[in-house]
């Protein structure tokens, strides 16, 4: 196929499968782009500009200027956010986002001061001498994203075209604007044709394509004339393509210009074809040459309920309400306000949402202009949907599968290829909203794929863990064998020094043990091995810990030995406290005796009695990290047995419960201690506990049958 690029160069135009010709409704193409005054409030959603671990550069009360950077995003895929006017940051918190479900997300709210001061622009007239990497960094830094609606980050798209196996072959500037009503790209091409031509030169400089094509649908004669004049003398080709929805979608446009069908699981940029919207090209020019970040975008305001219609350059973060007011909305009963065009836009649940870079149109249609959808009839398999689907799907079949929850079969039939362009729902004579069902099914498909991926990851983790354990076991066995071998060679039969130490410790613990036993006959003696080398936490202990968290105490206030004590001696100690402590002296004596020989054992034993460990008993070695604690805790020479549950219930007494430093604990517990101080999350207590699955952003919750259906189901 060595001649395909030549064929493209000759100006051949291919045809994509399917597509429709909806009414164009582009009345606003004659109205020039206007500016609106500064809105009374600017709301900028930041989550897209932060990522996981991004950094906010402002705080509430800060003065910002127009074009000032507000975030440092984490990851290459995201761009920073810039203030769209000067003013004061009055809030950073959850606000309603422009989303069909009215989700909330973190936003920066700016109260404009009205002066609209901007930071100094950093023009770069010598851009032609710059390296592509530097230009890409600049494009990213100035917040350029795909303004066609997909918000794919332009710099990373260009970067992946550069990194692709065969570089960039064809660069297509998308001026199709196939969606009805939208005229913003049309007006931009009419008014900024020269700037767009410069932007094209910048991108050509970066990715060095073999061929550059500007594609415009044949219903925009003025834009075609303007672009033709601007591209005069350059190598860039202007391609006038037939008007057909959705020719503006990247894959369809690539098919029209290059005859290639790039599968949906490949990135078009990596395949050597880069498609960029005209407004994106314009913002690249503004970012690179003028040094102005993206703080506004052009949108179309249309619909028969508007007092007037037009195209407007709007500051990002202005509310939809502000735009509607400026264009004198005269609402009807249950007025629909559509963000986006009539084919792919969604109705807003509230108009107090900000305009973002993704918005290209605000449409307030009257019900005479765009009538409401009639209730659906049965599908009669007329096949119109299959004839118009640009993704070559068979929508009526997919719809039937999706209705019957055949998710696997729906995936086999290519539900993930659906671009939700709405052609099938447009032509359906039975008025079935296929697109709605496909949006749902697509989300389910992505959810299932995600779950599968996670399952695989979990299995890998488990496998790696098991391998590691087996390796450790093997190493231990080898060491043991080697040690035995050594002993044998030395000819000294008998226990190893380590074992001897263990034996030595036993008699010293005995007093404490006796003390415990003497407290009450009903108490079972504590299993000492458990106390020292306790690696598994009994259920009761967990319960105690959780109780501690519930009453608001910190995790640190209860220590594993104390916990163990709590669950063994709880009742008996409580009894003893009631009767008065004749055994106190014994306990203290026992504990002190133990403390002289081994501090650790002593504290263990003392705690085993439900006895708070006071300052005197605290070993000096243990207090290295707790000097503040020592100051704050009042010295309490009077020794009182303090049953743990009681202590837990009374926060005042919690202070007297001794804080253990992590090194005193077995490694597992140390790990747990490192979590202490975080907001109390009961699921964090035991890392093995299954965590509640979180709902992903795109995830659909599992369908719950309403009660009446359940009843019907049970009736049979």
């Amino acid at each position, binding site marked *: *196929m060595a001649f395909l690029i030549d064929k493209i160069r000759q100006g051949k135009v291919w045809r994509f499968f399917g597509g429709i010709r909806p009414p164009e409704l582009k009345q606003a193409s004659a109205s020039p782009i206007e500016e609106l005054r500064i809105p009374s409030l600017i709301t900028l959603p930041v989550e897209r500009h932060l990522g996981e671990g991004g950094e906010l550069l402002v705080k509430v009360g800060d003065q910002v200027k127009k074009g000032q950077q507000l975030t440092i995003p984490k990851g290459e895929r995201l761009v920073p956010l810039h203030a769209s006017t000067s003013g004061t940051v009055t809030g950073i918190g959850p606000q309603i986002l422009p989303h069909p479900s009215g989700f909330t997300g973190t936003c920066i709210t700016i109260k404009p001061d009205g002066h609209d001061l901007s930071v100094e622009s950093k023009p770069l007239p010598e851009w032609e001498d710059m390296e592509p990497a530097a230009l890409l960094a600049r494009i990213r830094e100035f917040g350029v994203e795909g303004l066609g609606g997909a918000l794919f980050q332009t710099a990373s798209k260009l970067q992946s075209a550069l990194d692709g196996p065969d570089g960039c072959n064809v660069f297509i500037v998308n001026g199709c604007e196939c969606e009805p009503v939208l005229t913003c790209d049309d007006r931009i091409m009419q008014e900024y044709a020269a700037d767009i031509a410069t932007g094209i030169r910048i991108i050509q400089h970066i990715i060095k394509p073999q061929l550059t094509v500007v594609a415009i649908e044949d219903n925009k004669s003025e834009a075609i004339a303007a672009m033709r004049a601007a591209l005069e003398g350059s190598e860039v080709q202007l391609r006038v393509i037939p008007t057909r929805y959705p020719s503006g979608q990247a894959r369809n446009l690539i098919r029209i210009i290059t005859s290639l069908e790039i599968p949906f699981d490949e990135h078009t940029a990596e395949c*050597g074809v880069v498609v960029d919207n005209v407004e994106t090209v314009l913002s690249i020019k503004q970012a690179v040459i003028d040094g102005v970040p993206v703080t506004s975008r052009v949108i179309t305001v249309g619909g028969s309920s508007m007092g007037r219609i037009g195209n407007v350059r709007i500051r990002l973060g202005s509310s939809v309400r502000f735009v509607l007011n400026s264009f004198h909305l005269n609402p009807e009963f249950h007025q*629909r306000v559509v963000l986006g065009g009539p084919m792919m836009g969604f109705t807003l649940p*509230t108009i107090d949402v900000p305009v973002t870079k993704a918005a290209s149109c605000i449409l307030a249609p009257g019900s005479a202009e765009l009538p409401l959808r009639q209730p659906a009839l049965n599908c009669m398999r007329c096949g119109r949907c299959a004839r118009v689907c640009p993704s*070559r799907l068979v929508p009526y079949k997919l719809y039937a599968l999706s209705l019957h929850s055949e998710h696997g079969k729906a995936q086999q039939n*290519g539900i993930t290829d659906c671009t939700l362009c709405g052609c099938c729902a447009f032509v359906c004579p039975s008025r079935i909203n296929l697109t709605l069902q496909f949006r749902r099914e697509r989300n389910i498909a992505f959810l299932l794929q995600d779950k599968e991926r996670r399952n695989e990851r979990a299995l890998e983790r488990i496998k790696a863990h098991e391998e590691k354990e087996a390796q450790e076991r093997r190493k231990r066995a080898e060491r043991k064998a080697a040690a035995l071998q050594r002993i044998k060679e030395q000819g000294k039969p008998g226990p190893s020094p380590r074992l001897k130490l263990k034996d030595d410790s036993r008699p010293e613990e005995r007093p404490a043990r006796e003390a415990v036993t003497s407290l009450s006959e009903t108490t079972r003696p504590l299993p000492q091995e458990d106390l020292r080398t306790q690696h598994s936490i009994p259920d009761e202990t967990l319960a105690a810990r959780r109780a501690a968290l519930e009453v608001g105490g910190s995790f640190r206030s209860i220590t594993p030995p104390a916990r163990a004590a709590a669950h063994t001696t709880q009742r008996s100690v409580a009894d003893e406290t009631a009767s008065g402590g004749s055994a106190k002296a014994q306990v203290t004596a026992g504990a002190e005796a133990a403390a002289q020989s081994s501090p650790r054992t002593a504290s263990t034993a003392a705690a085993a009695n439900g006895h708070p460990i006071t300052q005197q008993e605290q070993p000096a070695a243990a207090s290295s990290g707790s000097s503040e604690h020592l100051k704050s805790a009042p010295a309490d020479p009077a020794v009182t047995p303090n049953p743990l549950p009681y202590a837990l219930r009374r926060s005042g007494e919690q202070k007297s419960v001794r804080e253990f430093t992590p090194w005193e604990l077995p490694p597992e517990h140390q790990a747990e201690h490192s979590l202490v101080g975080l907001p109390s999350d009961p699921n964090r207590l035991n890392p093995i506990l299954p965590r509640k699955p979180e709902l992903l*952003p795109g995830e659909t919750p599992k369908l719950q049958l309403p009660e009446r259906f359940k009843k019907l189901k049970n009736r049979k």
Partner: protein
Amino acid sequence: MVRRTASPSGPRSNLGLAPAPHLYARLTTGRLMLITALCLLPVALVQLYFLGCGLIWQFLIIYVTATLCEAAVSLLRHRPLKQTASDCSTLVTSALLALTVPPLLPWHLSCVCAAFAIVIVKECFGGLGMNIFNPAMAGFVFLLISAPGYMFSTFVPPAEGAFRIAGLGATYEVVIQRQDPAPLQERLHEAATQTDALSGATFLEGLKTSRKSGSADSMVNIPDFTTGAALYYSAQAAACAAGGLVLMIMRIIMVKMVLCYFLAVAGFSYLGHLWWPGLYLPELPTLLVGGTALAGFFIITDPVTNAGTGLGRISYAILVAFLIVVLRALGSYSDSVAFAVLLGNAAAPLIDVLTRRRPYGVGYRRGELL
């Protein structure tokens, strides 16, 4: 990240909410069916002219019965009556049925046939869009199998100006009052200006007897298609073509499918006649007689019962064409269109499976541009 929706916390929105797309084409199911029914009008006029006014009574009886059945079923299924009535599919089914049954059929048989078509064939499978078999054709076959004597005795010979002899009154007596149709048939027979090979009870009936004796080629010496019964067949085919053309222009039926169907009928009958002239008719009579033309434009194009995608529909049309030609030569009934269509319907799901569409982007290789 905790996500909350606006509605529980904020005030209830009074904005209208609707899922995308907010635009849609004007064509609806009801309008589509109505256009199809209107396109059947030329065929009905031709039948009125050549076969008399029995058609009007048949249509009325069948339409009323079908509508009542449909209403009863939707009441039983708790469906809104208005929605059931809004798709005019019953109108199309009854029009097709009325055009295919003999014009002098007694009314109770028409009722039974209509009820069978609607209740058993259509609604028992789930209503419009769910039926496997074409209701009109299934109703016709039901009648043909269960009451063959009536079917044979109530056919009328085509005669020019038959509506003058078999007017509304005369056919009322036969169809509604169930009088003997023989005198009326006799008068129509006399009215037929020219008595030739085609002026039997029906041409296909004569053909059946002649092909049983292996002498179908003696039947094909048709002088021309401008007189008598032959004129009826050519006029009916032309009327079907006129209606079908409208449907094709309005993009209601697939042009490729119809073309493939007629080409396949012509091709198969040409081959058949070439090899077994005693059994098969040549291509032109096969295209004109019986319900070949009606089937090509109005029956196999029924979206519900044929295959889904373009390729599937074309395969389905070719299969039906093949069955029509073969069954006409070898079947024991005089006409084969209804049987061929039903067999094709039964094969449609299989065709759907076999003609799977190529997914998007299959065959793409990297580096194809260079």
